[in-house]
């Protein structure tokens, strides 16, 4: 494992909001085809970490290095970072509610992002086939013509994951995908994410320990903006500080 190249390297990153240090000298690495779970108490900085990687929040300090060419993500706009291959699912499901599932998928599908290209765009057979294929993967094949606002909470989460996959990102950041899902829905979500991590890096933030266990991957524990522990789930859950700040509550 130690010789595996890194896709994303975050080092020494700090950010504070009005003097409050939300992220404190955080370092984090992930390889090109790896699954990683991030856990930690509320306010630990998990979402803020994703904000930094995706360009939404600019850190006060530190470096965020991406890909084989080791480019810095800090100089890029959100759109450029997304185009470089970082996909993100928000904590609260965000899909375009007054548009069909199909239209949502088409927006997300990896294609030229320029406005002229979008204006002249007509879905190719390949694109339509890809949408069908993805809809199958996320279990929404028979929902394609529905307005996405009419979907159940779980279906919206899947749609958003499907949109991420349609972007064909190299790194997927997934914030609390299982929140509000039934057990069966959670299992389906696990399957989608595990499948995705075979070909790309996937970072999952989740509070639900059972869910994390099923992901069966390395775990990073965040606390007060820095890494408290890292390793297998059994390893970190045996850590006394982790038990103190997170599990014990």
């Amino acid at each position, binding site marked *: 494992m130690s010789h595996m190249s890194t896709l994303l390297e975050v080092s020494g990153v700090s950010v504070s909001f009005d003097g409050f240090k939300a992220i404190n000298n955080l370092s984090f690495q992930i390889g090109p085809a790896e699954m990683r779970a991030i856990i930690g108490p509320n306010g630990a900085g998990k979402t803020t970490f994703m904000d930094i990687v995706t360009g939404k929040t600019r850190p006060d300090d530190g470096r965020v290095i991406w890909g084989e060419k080791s480019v810095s993500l800090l100089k890029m706009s959100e759109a450029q970072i997304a*185009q470089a291959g970082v*996909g993100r699912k928000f904590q609260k499901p*965000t899909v*375009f509610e007054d548009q069909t599932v199909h239209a949502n998928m088409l*927006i997300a599908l990896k294609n030229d992002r320029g406005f002229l290209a979008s*204006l002249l765009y007509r879905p190719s057979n390949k694109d339509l086939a890809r949408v069908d294929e993805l809809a199958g993967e996320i279990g929404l094949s028979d929902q394609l013509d529905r307005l996405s606002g009419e979907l159940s909470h779980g279906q919206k989460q899947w749609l958003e994951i499907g949109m991420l996959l349609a972007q064909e990102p190299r790194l997927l950041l997934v914030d609390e995908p299982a929140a509000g899902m039934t057990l069966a829905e959670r299992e389906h979500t696990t399957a989608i994410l595990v499948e995705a991590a075979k070909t790309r890096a996937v970072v999952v933030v989740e509070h639900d320990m059972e869910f994390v266990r099923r992901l069966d991957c390395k775990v990073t524990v965040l606390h007060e903006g820095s890494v408290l522990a890292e390793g297998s789930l059994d390893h970190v859950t045996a850590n006394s500080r982790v038990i103190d700040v997170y599990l014990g509550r």
Partner: protein
Amino acid sequence: MRQSFIQKNPSILIFLACLALFTLLVTVASEGFGLGFISTSFVKTLGKTLCLCLVAVAMDLIWGYTGILSLGHFAFFGLGGYMIGMWLMYERTRLIVVEALAQSDIPPTPEEVVSGIGSQIFGVVGSSDSPLIWSFAHSLPLQLALVVLVPGLLALIFGWLAFRSRVTGVYLSILTQAMTLALALYLFQNDSGLRGNNGLSGLQNLPGVSAGQDQVSLWFFWASALALGLGYLLAAWITSGKFGSIIRGIRDNESRVRFLGYSVEVYKLAVFTITAMIAGIAGALYYPQAGIINPAEVAPIASIYLAVWVAIGGRGRLYGAVIGAGFVSLVSTWFTGGQAPDIPLGFYTIKWVDWWLILLGLSFVAVTLFAPKGIGGLFDLLKKERAK
């Protein structure tokens, strides 16, 4: 499987058919070509209304579809009017000056003609030279190009500054009002080069055309109907495909679109600029029918009315914008034109000229609170009834 955007959306064909029928009926009933049921001045009112519908379509694109409440699109409308007005006024004055100078024995030099035009047009603001911005006024093709280029360029520069700094929501609306106010104040100045508060007048006369107003009014009416039809088609096409999906996405959740890799600012700027150009064209057709344009037309309140029309008609659907602008502006003409009968209450007489704006304001509040889909929402109810 893959249909054209018109097949997918039958309301486009229905709208175009209604527009064509309306144009035909007005033509047949007009004084210029037909039965004379409709006076020439009312043909002009209807033609102007079509132009207002066109600028409302533009407003719907930027507000209803993209979610940017611009309160400055009437400024672009006015600029379009000024650009065509410059040629109309210059060319007509030139013909008059040439004719007047032809009376003398020696043929006039070009300089004499130019200075004659200058003092004719700018005498009212105490000047006799054509300002630099009138350099192209002698050329119809150039001024026609400016009808789209000037509003387009202003929108491009203003939009680039505003969107790049991520100004959104109510702040953006205020900024567009400030832009409109600044433009109006500039135009009010005597040395603006556009005749200050006199504005440009006599625009109803087409230079070198001997046909009467009964004919000319019809030409402009047709041109307005054509522009509205084409503008509607363009807007329907823009909103139908992936681009339409993206701008509605920007309206509903800007950051989602951004994290999908789209440069939201570029999309906003594109819609802002395109709609400013459409507004410019609408204005260029409107003011020759109005006959006069002055800075009061560009006043910030006009752009607010535009938003009110679209809200009342139902934003986010193109026919809603057309219905709103058509209905409200015609009713407004009726009330403020003195045709509406005053209501004597004994102790007080309701004069519609004064009360109309209050009524309009109240309907705006009522629509916002109770029928956010506007008049267009009625069609949804109808559809639902039929589906039952």
